[in-house]
């Protein structure tokens, strides 16, 4: 599965709670669509409208499967000089961000994330192309990670 092994540091997988955090909004959205389809089919007495319900349920199942696979592929590694972020199964990517290039670090958590106790840590460099966000980091770990990153960034700050 793993196509890029970090030579220096072990990979930290993100929290499995991220699966819940992503499946819940998906299920709510598609659940409403399914419900709408069912109600419409019953009220209008048009059985073919049930196809909408079936479609939404299939989509939800497939989406959940994708989410599980994505989350299990998402990981980060703190190397000596760089942070590595790995994500994706179908479209996979590895991003290498040197600590010295970090401009600032964001820690974000929505209401559901806070309930589950996870957060998203995002690194910003001077490049708009840097896609280094780590979703589903356990909340305390996120704060520690942010502090660690900032400390290392300051120690190795290299301008632009």
């Amino acid at each position, binding site marked *: 599965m793993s196509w890029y092994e970090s030579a220096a540091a072990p990979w930290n997988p993100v929290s499995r709670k991220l699966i819940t955090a992503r499946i819940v909004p998906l299920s709510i959205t598609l659940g409403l669509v399914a419900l709408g389809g069912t109600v419409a089919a019953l009220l209008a007495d048009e059985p073919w409208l049930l196809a909408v319900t079936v479609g939404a349920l299939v989509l939800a199942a497939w989406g959940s499967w994708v989410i599980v696979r994505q989350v299990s592929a998402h990981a980060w590694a703190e190397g000596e000089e760089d942070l590595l972020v790995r994500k994706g199964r179908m479209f996979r990517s590895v991003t290498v961000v040197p600590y010295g290039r970090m401009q600032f670090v964001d820690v974000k958590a929505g209401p559901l994330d806070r309930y589950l106790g996870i957060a998203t840590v995002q690194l910003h460099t001077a490049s708009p*192309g840097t896609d280094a966000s780590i979703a589903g980091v356990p909340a305390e770990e996120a704060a520690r990670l942010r502090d660690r990153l900032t400390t290392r960034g300051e120690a190795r700050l290299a301008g632009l």
Partner: protein
Amino acid sequence: MTAEGPLYRAPREWTHLHPVSPFLGGWAILGLLLAYWIHQFLPSWVDGGDDTFAFFDRFPLIGLIVAATLGFALTMAVSVWQWRRTQFRIGDDAVYLRQGIVTQQQRQARLDRLQAVDVVQPLLARIFGFAAITVQVAGGQKSGIELKFLRLGDAEALRNEILALAAGVKAGGDAPEADAMAGDAAASSGGIRAHLAERAEALANPEALLTGRENVRTAVAAAEEREVYSVPLGRLLGSIALSGPTIFLLTLPFAGLIGFVFFQLDVVAAVAAILGTSLIAIVTALAGLLGYFWTRLNGGFGFTAGISVDGLRLRHGLTETRRQTVPPGRVAAIRLYQPFLWRSRDWWRITINVAGYGEDQESVSVLHPVATREEALRAVWLVLPDLGDPDPHGTLGYALHGTGDEGGFTTSPESARRVDPLQWRFRGVRATDRALLIRRGRWERELFVVPHERTQSLGLTQGPVRRALGLANVEVHSTQGPVRPIAAHLAVDDAVALLDAQAARAREGRRRQTPEQWMSAVGLSGAPTEGDVHG
């Protein structure tokens, strides 16, 4: 330093911009356009012949004129008010600007994050001898400071002083006291009479004025500059003629002919119908098409590049001239591009990424609008004097024209043919000690040069198709700008090896990169140079 009258000093106290600033803004052009428009349409409007203007017929003409005058006066008043509320000053560490009528906004551009300083002269300002200064700093869009307008000589003095401060050359010790009384007077040094005299002198030499080589007296002399290349007008026009839009324009009559001969279309009637629909639509379409030619001509006119202690100097522009100074080590990536039509001439268009310039490709991010091969090599040398290769010309030659693995390039494997049939043979990546070279293109050629120490981060990506073929892309994330280097369709093993090696090289590069204060690097800090402040 020989000007009569008081010399300009960059103000250490809050100071207004030049009082003519409100009259030189872009709205003046709008006013001219409005005047032209009224001139064009007034007859039909007065006669009431054209119902586009039926709305206006309900008002007496005199009322409209009064309304227009009032609107004009109001705009003026707001501009003047804005000018009153805009002040700037420079310190040893930053340039400060405060402005805003309703909400006061204060902004500072830290000199240790300085990326570039431009002296810009739009047409009106140029005629009257004024200039705006833009100070670009790293830190996202809109973090720069724009000071418009100052007298040209003052603007140059200010630019030179900002560069000297940013370079780590400290200003003379007597500076603060002398500034206490600088006040508003500093912004209009020399007085109107001296300015007019200088203008008359400048206008006597229209050629210098046209090419933006006007000689101005400045209190702080610019660092000595050596010209490296300039673009002849003939070649610029040739490059514009050999472009996609030209070919498109040229094919239009043939398209008409084909339509007439093969499809029996009444071309004349069709054209007349299109023309008849709306003049404005035609004008807009033409403007869009001609806009391309115009930006290329305007941006590339009189293009000159030079090198000085303060870094790269670029000068260009037909109506709006721009003199850019990019200190050493600020260029984050270079792209050399050769469209198909330029192949026979071996011309290259070279663009660069400089943090702070953002995406504005046409006016600020061009290093060379149309370079011969020899000039292209020199342009790369300007940015990267040491390519970190024993044979830089040979290596760049392979990078510009080579195929396959000659010259030490890592190429795409044959499986890449399936997704990239035309250019898989032409793709190549090679790292020198100082920079990464990424090459691609069969009909058109493209080369990216990214200095290792300017690499922000790296990405390795792969979708399902590339995965099946055992390919992957390596992206080199550069600062915001028109250059986005990507090494596509490498064999997975090569890509992974490149990612690791490049991360290591970038690490190494960061250790020895040019310090932000480039003068301190060579031990010039504190030394009185030609850029030092003259009291």
